Every structure is written in C-alpha cells, then in structure tokens.
C-alpha cells in the first residue's frame, strides 16, 4: 500500500510547481500544553529549516472541526497530511479522504486504527501510564507508606488517550490492588481535563475517604496541581505523593517544592523532528525506512513507525528537562524556586 501512495503523491507533487506543502492537525490545546506550546513550535522550525511550506492547525478537541480542517488543507493543496487523531473513526475518514486525493499521510503521536497512514511517529501512551504507575509506587516506597490508599484522577472520559494512560498505570497498580498491598479508594475521570473540576472532584475523594489518601495518580500536571491545591488547603502537601505528565513549568516547580512526586517528560522535540523528517521526505516524493513497525490490529497491517521513549522525571533529574531546553531555567527558577533549583542541581 505504501508504494501506491508514494506514487500518487509524486504525481500530486509534480502537478504543481510550488514548494511542497505539509499540513498538520493538532488535536486540542487544553488536554496538554504540549500541542500548542511545543509541537507547533518544533514542527514549524523543522519545516522552515527544510524550506517547505507548512500549515499547522488545531482541532480544539472537536471532531467536526478536525474534519473541516482536513478538508480545507486538502483543498489548499497540501502534499502531506500529518494528523493527531481525535478518535480512530474521524481519523480514518480523514486519512482515507486524503489518500483518495493523492495526499500522503502520517499518524503523529496517535495511531489511527484501521487507518491508512504511511508512517506512525509516537510516544507510547501506555508506556507513559506505566511510568506514572511505577513513579507513584516508587514515591510511596520512598516515603515508607504501608498499605497506601490510592486515588485516581483520570483524564477526560471522552479522551481516548486518557484511556490509554489509564491502561498503562493500571497495568502496574492493579496487581498491587489485587494483592491488597495497595487500596484504591477513588477512581474518577475529569471531564475535559478541567482543572477546576478536578479540584472539586479530588476534594470529594478526600472527604469520602475520610481524609486518608496516601497517593494520587493524576493523569497530567494540571490535574496534579489541582490535587495539590486541595492538599495544600488541608496542609497535606508534600506528604501525599502526586504524579503528573508533560513536565510543565508548573509541574516541575511542584516537584522542586516537593509537592509533586514525579512527572513524565516526553521529548517532544525528538518526536517532532522525527515526524518532520518523514513528512519532508514524503513531500519531496522520497521514501524513508524507519526500521520499526507497529501492528494495527484493526487494519491488520504493520505500520512503519518511529517510537520514542517517554522519561520519568523526579526531583533529581529535573535538570534533564532544562538541559533539553524544553523549559528554560529563567522560566522555572523564578522567585522562591531559585534556591530549590540550585539544590536540585538545575543549571
């Protein structure tokens, strides 16, 4: 299938004298800061450096908008379409439409099941969840808590990624629940990843548990911060480990302050660069080998893939994130955090 599409995209490229053009559809701006804050920047830099035209848009977690944007990009004459799908259904519809119009496609960060993308570039979302689960149990062990009560603060119930994250941390924690080593006292999803609702939900979890929550598995840094704000109010911050994801400035600061136990850092730049490289190649009508493949169970095919490893960040390796230039020292080490930064070896 790859060969066919490569051919047709050649034709499309040949029919226009203009520079090759790449369209990117990001999923939303609210589930995580990475999309607009990092991915957009890194992808644009890579495309600009290679001298290809690009059009990067965000679907704002709206499937209809997602499809509309795809239609518009195809109308606008992109040669390569790179999508982060909102769900496999719309993703497939968009990929199929693009294919039928001779546009090459890449699945970015999320695999479209049953889809027709030529490449897949991603962090493994389940691996992210696994790191969170492992991180939480590590922090609990470090604190020496016996038979801890755990609360889940999952992502949006309508977000498939949230399900994937959960699968990941469940795979680590469920055995511990089953063996009665840990107790799960609450398990709630936060609609639309809304931090304000997360605070209320966590406060109620705490009330329901009679105040006894020893560890919080928060699906990202925003939810984690919401839990921390409630813990602070009850003067429990720092005593109860909280997880996160995305290595946001706020999350890292919480880690430095000892309120948050860990976050998961995804080197978005690496992912973006890998994807951009593939996209540029496709746009120029070239073919690249990735070396890896991922099985699409629904489409029953092996998709050539670039898979990157997420990284767990604790207080002692916050400096790695800064070293990667994902967050700058100036942003991170403001005010009271300057000293904490020094203590943690951030330079």
């Amino acid at each position: 299938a790859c060969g066919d599409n490569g051919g047709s995209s050649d034709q499309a490229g040949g029919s226009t004298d203009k520079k090759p053009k790449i369209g990117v559809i990001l999923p939303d701006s609210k589930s995580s800061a990475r999309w607009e804050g990092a991915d957009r920047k890194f992808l644009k830099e890579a495309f600009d450096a290679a001298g290809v035209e690009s059009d990067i848009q965000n679907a704002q977690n709206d499937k209809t908008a997602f499809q509309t944007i795809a239609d518009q990009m195809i109308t606008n004459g992109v040669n390569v379409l790179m999508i982060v799908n909102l769900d496999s259904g719309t993703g497939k519809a968009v990929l199929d439409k693009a294919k039928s119009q001779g546009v090459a496609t890449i699945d970015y960060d999320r695999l479209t099941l049953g889809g027709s993308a030529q490449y897949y570039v991603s962090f493994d979302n389940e691996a992210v969840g696994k790191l969170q689960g492992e991180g939480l149990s590590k922090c609990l062990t470090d604190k020496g808590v016996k038979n801890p009560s755990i609360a889940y603060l999952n992502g949006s119930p309508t977000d498939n990624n949230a399900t994937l994250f959960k699968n990941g941390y469940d795979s680590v924690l469920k055995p511990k629940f089953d063996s009665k080593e840990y107790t799960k006292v609450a398990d709630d999803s936060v609609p639309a990843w809304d931090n304000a609702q997360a605070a209320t939900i966590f406060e109620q979890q705490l009330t329901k548990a009679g105040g006894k929550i020893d560890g919080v598995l928060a699906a990202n840094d925003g939810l984690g911060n919401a839990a921390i704000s409630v813990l602070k109010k009850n003067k429990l911050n720092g005593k109860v480990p909280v997880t996160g994801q995305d290595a946001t400035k706020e999350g890292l600061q919480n880690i430095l302050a000892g309120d948050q136990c860990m976050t998961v850092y995804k080197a978005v730049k690496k992912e973006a660069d890998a994807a951009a490289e593939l996209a540029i190649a496709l746009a120029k009508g070239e073919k690249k080998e990735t070396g890896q493949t991922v099985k699409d169970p629904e489409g029953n095919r092996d998709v050539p893939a670039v898979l990157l490893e997420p990284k767990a960040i604790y207080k002692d390796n916050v400096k790695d994130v800064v070293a990667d230039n994902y967050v700058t020292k100036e942003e991170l080490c403001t005010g009271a955090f300057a000293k904490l930064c020094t203590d943690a070896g951030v330079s």
Partner: protein
Amino acid sequence: MTATVVKKEGPAGVAPAPTVGSHVNNYWRRVRGGDIGALPAVIMLLVLAVGFSIARPSFFTAGNLANLFTQGAAVTLIAMGLVFVLLLGEIDLSAGFASGVCAAILANVVTVLGYPWYVAVLAAVVTGVVIGTVLGLLVAKVGIPSFVVTLAGFLAFQGVVLTLMDEGANIAVRDDTLVAIANRNLSPALGWALAALAVGGYAAVQLLRHRNRSARGLLTDPIAVVAARIGGLAVILGLAVYVLNLERSRNVLVVSLKGVPIVVPIIAVLLVVWTFVLQRTSYGRHIYAVGGNAEAARRAGISVDRIRISVFVICSGMAAIGGIVAASRANSVDPNTGGSNVLLYAVGAAVIGGTSLFGGKGRVLDAVLGGAVVAVIDNGMGLMGYSSGVKFVVTGVVLLAAATIDALSRRRAAATGTR
C-alpha cells in the same frame, strides 16, 4: 405575502395598484423601513464569501463549496429543529447531546448489533422522538422551565453517550449507506433532475396560488413578479448544481469527485417540509400563536401543552437526524459527538438567521441561512492557518461583524407591521 385592501376609500386608505413597478417600489420601501426578511443573512453570506475568497483564493473553488455543505449539515439540521422550540420562546440545551445519544444508538445498532442501516436509522429517530416527548412532558405538564429541564438533559445525555460508548471508546460506522449520507454525491444527472423538479414544483405552487387568488378577486402580485421569483430560483439552483457538478478531484486519475453532496437534497427536503408545516398548516399557525401570546392562543382554544410537547419532539427528532449525519461524516461515533460547540453553534445559527429567543418570530429558512453563515466562517477560518488562540478570537470577531450587518440593516425596523 402580499397586501390586500379591504376597501378603497379616503386619501390615506389608498393601496398601491399592484403593478410590477409599484411592487418593486413597495419592496424597496419595506426594505428601507427595516422589514427585510432574509436579506441581511444573504448579505452576510456574500460579504463573508467575498472576504474569504480575497484572503484565500482556494475558498472560491467547487471543492470547497461542496465541503461547505457537508461541514455545516449537522449543525444546520439541529438548528432547524431548534427553530421550533425557539418559536415558542423555549430553549433546548440538550439538542447537541441528544443528537449524540441518537448517533450512539445508531452506531450500536448497526455496528455492535449488526442490524441493517434502516433499522439503525429508525432506532435513532425513535430515540430522538422519545427524548423529545420526555422533555416536552416535563416542560409542559410538570412546568419546569425548559432551560432547567434541558440543562439536566444536557448533563444526563452526556452520561448516556458515555455509557453507550463503554466509557470512552468510540464505535465505527462502516455501513456503506450510512457513510454515503455525508460523504458521497448524487450523480450529475440526478442533481439536474432534482433541481428541475424543485423549480417545477415551486412554479406550480406559485402559479396555482396566483390563479386561485385572482379568480376570487383578491389582490395578487403581478404575474411578472411571480415569474421573476420562479426564474430567480431556477437561476440559483441551476448555478449551484452546475458548480457542484464540476470535477473537483485533485487527481482525476485516482478518483472522480463531482455531483451534489447527498446531504443537500436531504436538507432541502426537510426545509421544504418544515416550511410547509409552519406556513401552510394550522399546526404551524398555532406554533406562532403560542409563541406570540400563549394566553391568547389558549383563549382561542389551542391546546398549548400539546403544541409545547410537539416542538420538543420535532427538535429532538431533527437532532437525531443531525446525529446520523454527524456519525456518517465522522464514520464513527465517540463520546464527544454532539458535544463541544455543536449546541451553541446550532442556536447561534438560528438566531443569526433572524429567529427570536423570545418566541413568535423565526423560520426554518433562518436556520439554514444562519447555519450557512456559521459554516462559511468555520470553513473560511480553516483556510487562514491561524494558531488556535488567534483562530478563536478571529472567529468571534468575524461572527460579530456578520451580526453587525444584520443589526444595522434592521436598525430602521421601526415596526412597519406589514410582512
């Protein structure tokens, strides 16, 4: 539609003689007096289209026109149903998620349970009708304000969709017929045939009415004006079909893409049917009456409760159809179907078209025109390539600018009292 005089007498009582000139003249005076019907929405559409075409020439292509229809279809369908509820001065906040519930039922029936498409469609529409009945009963019989009832529905249906979707997964819709609704086109010939049928039907209705009225000695529009109307429709439809029948595939060797998208006749038929119901049946008349003055309607012996229930049924039923189209377009249903901005866009479409939130004023055509405005803005913004923050801001500003055209042109609306 037209003016009739009881008796001619006295200097101020003279009605203009119904000649073509006076008709045009009269229309112009009405427009200047602020009684302008669909005009502002049409102007809005033109201004937006010209603006976007200048900014992004690709806006002005056959392919984009076709996209426009399918992109705006679901919201427009929901807005058409909402017009009925708004005509009564009620609101249905749950329409978006009701469409989600119906879409979820559709997907479950066709994909999970494996029934044929028509069973699924039937199930979805029946679900919509049931939802509407429940909402209507709560509003009319229990007497809870519709805002509260449908806010509860908004929450509950969101949960129902989640539950039907197994807490977050999505269900694919792969049935060919269902997928065709929002993704395939009529053959060019069929497009022409339908357009011809529409013009013919319109002509027949108009001419019959003209004959009927003049036979009874009632005042009628001059026949030339009637002919001009029919001609106008023919030109517009002809042009639209012509453009949509152009080849719009980027790569004709791979696939040929032409013809009127299937959703277009679906919307057109529903538009005609609902317009007929509102304008030409006593049921429709009663809806306007209840919306205008519920107490007067009650005193006239109209069963206000029954009307109230029925509009919720229509609204949720149309939401079901909107949900089916959305599912078809997305090839799938997920827990967000009908969520996010769908509801506000649908109500906004109806209001931008000229429907009042206070009841008694509005047409189904308003929803279609307003839906078109919303779709054009969305479509055009998609071509501009802004970052998401900027895009939201610009969308809001463009919407406001469009609404300003409407407000300014209605400015003179010193209530002329004639329609």
